[in-house]
């Protein structure tokens, strides 16, 4: 089929080879200087780095909050903070990690940086909108910080009514902050969709699109379809507090379960906003470090879209005990299991890609393996929670806490770290210490499992979540878990040290340290301000490791601005050799 298509509307192009410049003197990091140039940049790479700085800050804050929680839970009764503080801390840990770290992490940081590079474009379609989305994020964050310092919020990140409508504290500032943040997410998604459609380099047909971009594309679709519903939900909640409109507050005739429908219609797909771009990264990393054609390209690409779609139909599995109708429970349980299938397909395809590959266990690959293991556990425990009768027992216990940490942290954060280590040389033109990176990864793996495996057992034993005090029976589990959290803390400190060291004194990275065939590795590290001095022309798929590197560096000299994406291209053999 693919060949037919190519024959029918193929365009002949005269191309030559453009070898990437090694150790470029001028690149995007030094071409424009000064803090003002950074704050007003419309360059997608710099905006990606601005996001990287911000989410690192919030990850640090959220992480410290997590350690506070774990420390408090060392003893069954109060250890060092009171119940009210504890409730605020877990609310903030959840809200910050989800809205300020997980959701923007892969799309806004790595996506922003890599997407135009992988498309062979000079920037995203709407660079100023891209910058605006960053500042919207900052304003949203400012509102949230304002809420923290003016009374705090103790509702849990889910803001369930009627508690959130009646509790004291500055819930309005917080929900308003998250409301604003939603627009940042929407604008990023909008930008990516249009960019992927309109700004592909000649030859990047849909079947040559890197899987990372399929992941980002699916994510963007979820962002634009789900986030507006969060916006209206939070707006209604704000109005509930401001004007007592009563739609969600039973004291005024409203229905709290309706709020949960509103909330989870966004917040379940949001889980896929977090994890689907991670799938994209893992596909890139596994193929690159196995130096092998990805197995089942279309299976992986389409399963991302399938997950994005089915992910919209399953929100009610957060509400099995909430008092929704049995019919809804049945339908939601059924649909929930269907999400498992495309997820399984991905895992098996990745394994098949490794089969007979040439596997180089560099840090990104190590993280990808860790991802595979932890995410599989997260997936299986998801099956457990999807089963209606078992969920009745496990709902709102530590089992759920452990499950989503396996998916979010074991899945998404590991994928993010894989991506960060993978693209780090491209971002900064520096290598990091492979030795310390692996040590840190190993410690993180151990610490993670120490923290969250005991929580599965506690949860199955009946330990409810969001508990400040607990019965003595659970103390040893909690203590083990807390030690694990500190081990993870150590891993992140090591990571911070070697990454900062890499920035300051790291070895210069070559343009393509991993020997990847993907387009972003065929330009210098770090890239120049406008990415490409030529118009890249793509003749092979991004994972065609059986073809020589020279065929991946083709292009036409830049005689004009951007490029059209529509047609497939073919380059005759003689031209290739000429190159």
């Amino acid at each position: 089929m693919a060949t037919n298509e190519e024959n029918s509307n193929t365009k002949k192009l005269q191309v030559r080879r453009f070898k990437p410049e090694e150790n470029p003197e001028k690149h995007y990091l030094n071409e424009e200087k000064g803090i003002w140039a950074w704050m007003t940049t419309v360059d997608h790479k710099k905006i990606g780095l601005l996001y990287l700085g911000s989410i690192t800050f919030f990850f640090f804050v959220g992480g410290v909050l997590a350690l506070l929680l774990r420390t408090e839970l060392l003893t069954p009764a109060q250890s060092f903070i009171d119940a009210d503080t504890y409730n605020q801390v877990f609310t903030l840990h959840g809200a910050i990690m989800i809205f300020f770290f997980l959701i923007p992490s892969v799309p806004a940081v790595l996506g922003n940086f890599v997407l135009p590079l992988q498309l062979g474009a000079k920037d995203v379609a709407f660079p100023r909108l891209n910058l605006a989305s960053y500042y919207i994020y900052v304003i949203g964050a400012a509102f949230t910080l304002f809420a923290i310092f003016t009374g705090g919020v103790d509702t849990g990140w889910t803001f369930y009514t009627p508690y959130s409508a009646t509790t004291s504290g500055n819930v309005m500032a917080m929900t308003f902050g998250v409301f604003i943040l939603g627009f940042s997410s929407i604008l990023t998604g909008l930008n990516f969709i249009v960019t992927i459609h309109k700004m592909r380099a000649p030859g990047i047909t849909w079947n040559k699109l890197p899987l990372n971009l399929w992941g980002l594309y699916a994510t963007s679709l979820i962002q634009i379809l789900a986030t507006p519903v969060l916006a209206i939900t939070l707006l209604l909640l704000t109005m509930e507090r401001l004007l007592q409109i009563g739609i969600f507050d039973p004291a005024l005739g409203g229905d709290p379960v309706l709020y949960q429908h509103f909330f989870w219609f966004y917040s379940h797909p949001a889980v896929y906003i977090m994890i689907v771009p991670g799938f994209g990264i893992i596909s890139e990393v596994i193929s690159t470090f196995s130096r092998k054609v990805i197995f089942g390209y279309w299976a992986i690409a389409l399963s991302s879209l399938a997950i994005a779609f089915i992910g919209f139909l399953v929100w009610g599995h957060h509400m099995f005990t909430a008092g929704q109708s049995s019919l809804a429970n049945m339908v939601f349980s059924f649909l929930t299991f269907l999400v498992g299938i495309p997820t399984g397909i991905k895992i098996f395809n990745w394994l098949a890609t490794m089969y007979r590959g040439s596997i180089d266990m560099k840090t990104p690959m190590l993280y990808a393996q860790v991802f595979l293991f932890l995410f599989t556990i997260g997936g299986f425990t998801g099956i457990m929670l999807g089963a209606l009768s078992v969920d009745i027992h496990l709902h709102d216990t530590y089992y759920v806490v452990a499950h989503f940490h396996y998916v979010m942290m074991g899945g998404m954060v590991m994928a993010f770290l894989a991506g960060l280590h993978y693209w780090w040389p491209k971002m900064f033109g520096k290598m990091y210490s492979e030795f310390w990176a692996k040590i840190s990864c190993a410690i993180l793996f151990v610490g993670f499992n120490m923290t969250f495996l005991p929580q599965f057992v506690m949860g199955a034993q009946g330990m409810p979540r969001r508990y400040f005090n607990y019965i003595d029976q659970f103390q040893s589990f909690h203590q083990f878990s807390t030690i694990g959290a500190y081990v993870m803390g150590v891993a992140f400190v090591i990571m911070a040290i070697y990454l900062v060291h890499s920035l300051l004194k790291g070895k210069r990275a070559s343009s393509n340290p991993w020997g990847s065939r993907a387009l972003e590795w065929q330009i210098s590290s770090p890239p120049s301000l406008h990415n490409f001095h030529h118009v890249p022309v793509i003749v092979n798929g991004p994972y065609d490791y059986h073809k020589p590197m020279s065929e991946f560096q083709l292009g036409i000299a830049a005689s004009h601005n951007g490029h059209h994406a529509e047609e497939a291209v073919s380059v005759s053999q003689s031209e290739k050799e000429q190159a």
Partner: protein
Amino acid sequence: MSGHHISSAKFLWGVALALFVLTFITVAVTWIQIPEPWNIVVAIAIAVVKALIVVAFFMNLWWDSKFNVLLFIMSIAFFLLLIGITLLDTLYRVDPVPSF
């Protein structure tokens, strides 16, 4: 992929006229009391027709790229999903009643 469709003034007036007529009809049918639930069905049907006319001929989706059409359809589809699945809960609740 014609992004620059130019409609004639006559055509645009015609579209507006159709919309005015439909507005009149939707008000007029409330004078002849149609029984529940058909009155809602008729009202919504007319609104859908009006909306489609606006989308197709004022917003030029009729001549627009397939993907923009797809986007529009997708938004409606997901909106219907949101409503349809939520109604599976809200319409089918059976609450117990205490006997004392």
